[in-house]
């Protein structure tokens, strides 16, 4: 028994070293994220998206819509466009290119609903698509609505 244990201990130590060496070895080959180009892409794509949204909103306001309604319609348009692109499988490549540039605007929220829902289509229209529609969007909605409402109630009592 004692011999076996000794052997085990002997094999254990080198193992740790081996894994460490292996990690270092792997690190050489994993590409470091290109911080600058990723950030530049996210900045430009995100900025352009917001500019386009403002342009459409201004068009709607010019045609006689109130600013609030125009804002709501722009949001709806962006959400539907992002979901359609997700359905067509285009949004994935967009996301790979622009990263946060398309995930941080409301388009990312829309994509986070459809993407898992499509993947789980096989589990049926109710428990598959219906449930998975909220697997990523659920946390965002729960936290966002809670935070907003708590702030509103605090405001009500402090007023």
């Amino acid at each position, binding site marked *: 028994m004692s011999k076996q244990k000794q052997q085990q201990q002997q094999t254990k130590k080198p193992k740790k070293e081996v894994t460490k060496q292996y990690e270092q070895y792997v690190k050489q080959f994993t590409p470091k994220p290109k911080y600058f180009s990723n950030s530049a892409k996210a900045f430009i794509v995100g*900025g352009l998206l917001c500019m386009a949204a403002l*342009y459409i909103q201004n068009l709607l306001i010019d045609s006689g819509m109130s600013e609030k309604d125009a804002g709501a319609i722009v949001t709806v348009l962006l959400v539907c466009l992002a979901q359609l692109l997700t359905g067509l499988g285009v949004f994935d490549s967009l996301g790979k290119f622009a*990263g946060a540039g398309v995930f941080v605007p409301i388009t990312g929220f829309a994509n986070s609903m459809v993407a898992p829902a499509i993947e789980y289509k096989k589990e049926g229209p109710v428990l598959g698509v219906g449930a998975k529609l909220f697997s990523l969007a659920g*946390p965002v909605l729960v936290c966002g609505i809670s935070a907003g409402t708590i702030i509103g109630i605090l405001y009500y009592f402090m007023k």
Partner: protein
Amino acid sequence: MDYLYAFLVGGGICLVGQILMDTTKLTTPRILVIFVVAGAILTGLGLYEPLVNLAKNGATVPLPGFGYSLAKGAMDGAKEGFLPALAGGLKNTAAGLTAAVVFGYIISLVFSPKSKR
């Protein structure tokens, strides 16, 4: 001039998101949650409203803008009473949310998963 501010502010918010994605181990859904909650809290502190007035869609289209609408609706409702404070947040975002749910459901039923290349 509006367009320039929309570009700079909208791009800037996305830039922060990208830096968070690259330098921390936070996953995308967590970043989305952080942004929405941060937007709501900044609105509560009165810091996000000036940004919206300056950059318009540059501040409302990114996800902190969703938090802003939720908090703004609740705060506007709070001026009228307790019940409007509860209803206000969702009332303000109802159109976008409903579109996201209904259209998202239809899209998910119509399209089939694409193999990832």
